[in-house]
């Protein structure tokens, strides 16, 4: 399928930016995201191809600007919604609760 992910050979990109002594994970949420992704697919009955396809279905601007594990999580959210496991609204309601807790305890 043609799409923004089919990027091989595309013109217009600058230099390959590298990070000296790059850590495996850049923040704790990346570590958690990796683990959540690692286990969830098999538990909700989706495979690696479906995960990749969900990433490929992200809007092109998100695909090009979101960080790697952010794309994983946004794609997983799609699969959670499509399998009836969790809705985006449930996730965002929980996010709001967590943000409020932070403010209260901040």
């Amino acid at each position, binding site marked *: 399928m043609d799409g923004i*992910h*089919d*990027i*091989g*050979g*595309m*013109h*217009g*990109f*600058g*230099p*390959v*930016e*590298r*990070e000296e002594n*790059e850590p*495996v*994970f850049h*923040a*704790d*949420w990346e*570590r*958690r*995201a*990796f*683990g*959540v992704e*690692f*286990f*969830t697919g098999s*538990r*909700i009955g989706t495979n*690696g*191809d479906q995960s*990749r396809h969900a*990433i490929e279905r992200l809007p092109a601007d998100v695909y*090009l600007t979101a*960080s*790697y*594990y*952010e794309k994983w*999580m946004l794609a*997983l*959210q799609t699969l*959670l919604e499509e399998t009836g*496991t*969790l809705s985006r609204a*449930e*996730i*965002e309601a*929980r*996010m709001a609760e*967590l*943000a409020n807790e*932070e*403010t209260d*305890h*901040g």
Partner: protein
Amino acid sequence: MSGHKHNEPESDIALRVKAMEQLLTEKGIVETNAIDLVADYFENKVGPRNGARVVARAWCDADYKARLLADASPAIAELGYSGLQGEDMVVLENTPQVHNVIVCTLCSCYPWPVLGLPPTWYKSPPYRARIVREPRAVLAEFGLEVADDVEVRVWDSSAEIRYMVLPMAPEESAGKSEEELVDLVSRDGMIGVAAH
């Protein structure tokens, strides 16, 4: 380590991941301890040192090298490395005539059991877009000048196959033990963006 301090709001994605983990834990789909273990495994227990041991063995043992090039996954498993993202491995031998380099243009496929998780640049649009169109220019940016009479082969991972480059042993490898050779092999050498 997390850069989050308690008096700063967490980023949207950090909150989203926390919310997803909580909700999935409550549904019994994921477990906190299991996530800790798998993250620790990929952060601390697997990495390019595994691949370096495979390369060093191949440099020292011609029979092993022949097995590695003929059917890589079982040869790599001889050293104890196997599993997810390494089920169907192909090892590409660099020679004085051919330099190999790997990419996954469509996503981020990478041989986890031998190299660990990929660096960000490997997964980035500039590398994926350019390495197939202008490999010599990209390799030069990495500091690797490939002579004009050396063919550059770029291998694009498929949904199943995972590639790893077998670099040529450098001059300084002469007389070294297999264990010492391991230190001469870099992650970038096994991706193909460095000489070894």
